[in-house]
């Protein structure tokens, strides 16, 4: 069992069984979907993605409440956090948070974790208590998108001035 399968098994434990069954039925479809259709529309769960194409082995779509559990599992499996990115899906009225994890390993496994929150109430629990390195990345995402990371020790502006009152990477932001 290589690293990717191990990690996948560990991560699948998070998703409830009945949902997972559903997933497994849709998974084949989902994996096919990766090839032609954007993997944006799909249900929560873990799927493998072709590394050569997407640059990540596992793609995890989860509820915002699950990001901490996933961070704990990945942290236990010696993953480190590469970055946290926000994506503003204006048409769907959603903000997406994309976490990238990788390992210091030659048996490489990159994991992308995605969670969506409504634009009107962008709140997601912080993972900076599990992974201290997430602290700055979360502050940066807050800085650019206004996503509130609940429980973050110091959620203030990091790159923009302290008194900035806008979130520049939102698609409807006009300078």
């Amino acid at each position, binding site marked *: 069992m290589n690293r990717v399968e191990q990690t996948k098994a560990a991560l699948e434990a998070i998703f409830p069984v009945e949902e997972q069954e559903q997933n497994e039925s849709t998974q084949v479809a989902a994996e096919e979907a990766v090839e*032609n259709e954007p993997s944006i529309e799909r249900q929560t769960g873990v799927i493998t993605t072709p590394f050569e194409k997407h640059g990540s082995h596992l793609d995890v779509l989860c509820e915002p409440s699950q990001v901490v559990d996933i961070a704990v599992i990945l942290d236990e499996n010696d993953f480190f956090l590469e970055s946290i990115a*926000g994506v503003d899906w204006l048409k769907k009225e959603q903000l997406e948070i994309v976490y990238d994890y990788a390992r210091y390993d030659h048996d*490489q496994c990159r994991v992308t974790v995605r969670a969506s929150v409504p634009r009107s109430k962008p709140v997601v629990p912080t993972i900076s208590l599990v992974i201290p390195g997430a602290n700055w990345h979360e502050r940066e995402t807050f800085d650019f998108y206004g996503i509130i990371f609940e429980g973050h020790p110091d959620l203030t502006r990091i790159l923009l001035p302290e008194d900035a009152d806008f979130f520049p990477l939102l698609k409807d932001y006009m300078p």
Partner: protein
Amino acid sequence: MTLPVELRHDETFVLNLGPQHPATHGVLRVKLTMDGEYIVKAEPVLGYVHRMHEKLAEVAPYAQFMPNTARMDYLHALAFNHGYALVVEKAAGIEVPERAEYIRVITVELNRIASHLLWWAAFLLDLGGFTPLLYAFDDREHVIDLLERITGSRLTYCYMRFGGVYNDIDDEFITGTRDFIKRLRSRMPSLYHDLVTHNIILIKRIKDIGFISAEQCRKYGATGPVARGSGIDYDVRKNEPFSVYPELDFDVPVYDECDSMARYMVRMDEMEQSLRIIEQALDKLPDGPVQAKVPKILKPEAGYYYSAVETARGSLGHRLVSDGGKNPYKLKLRSPTFSNLSLFGEVAEGMLLADALAFMGSLDLVIPEIDR
């Protein structure tokens, strides 16, 4: 008489290091709470050269963001070029001719040497040695001249294109590069190692200073020489081979001491490895085109793409989200020093001011890359 230093109730005072300070190499500000010369708390304050490149990426077509990539890490601009080219090529499914791949590797490695030389120079300047700076600049000048010959610019190269490179290399560049390899190899032992590395003052100054454990590296996502100085064998070029790196034989220097000296040694050894890579790549350089046929307007299919490259400072990631349009929908830059610097606060606690600055120098900060 007035008290020059306002003491707080716990007898600490706040020292503002920067944003304009000789040791911060740019405009980084560190808010230090000091007890005498000891640091109680260190908080880096970022954003003084923030230019919002991520928004700039969203408002222009893919190709027009390329010049901006060189403006982030101005010391290893070609690696940023390369990283961005890789992620777009991945998304749009562009094949790169082999000769172009080799030229990319050669130029990126030359640029890495230039970056490490400048780091070395600046680090020594932080430690108060001014002369090594000039020796390193002398060597760096040769690299810059070589790169200027083929790219046309000296610092902010915009050399890579999707599916190739801007310009082919010529024989003069190849002989020049071989001469440079010889030159650096002959100067390295005396001017770099005998004068500085073996110097007792330097050893005493940076050995056992700035201890970063492997666990701390992982928790903060540190990569590059910082991680390799803590005994972590992680180099994107080896761990997730991209471009033609798998065909080239080189080692990844790893030191277990976890201190500033280890990080110093990693970078010094890396220069030698880069020379080896360049030598082999020059030997293996195939003939052929340097630019693939690429459609004028790129429209990669919608989806999530990630690509990592190894810059002189660590793993640089580009997270690209495409919605199928002609502009990137979202381009997130994962800059290595941003993560590396987030370690600083924790590690610098309890250090002396002078040690903390030596430690900061050993992290190899490039501020525009942190602030993006």
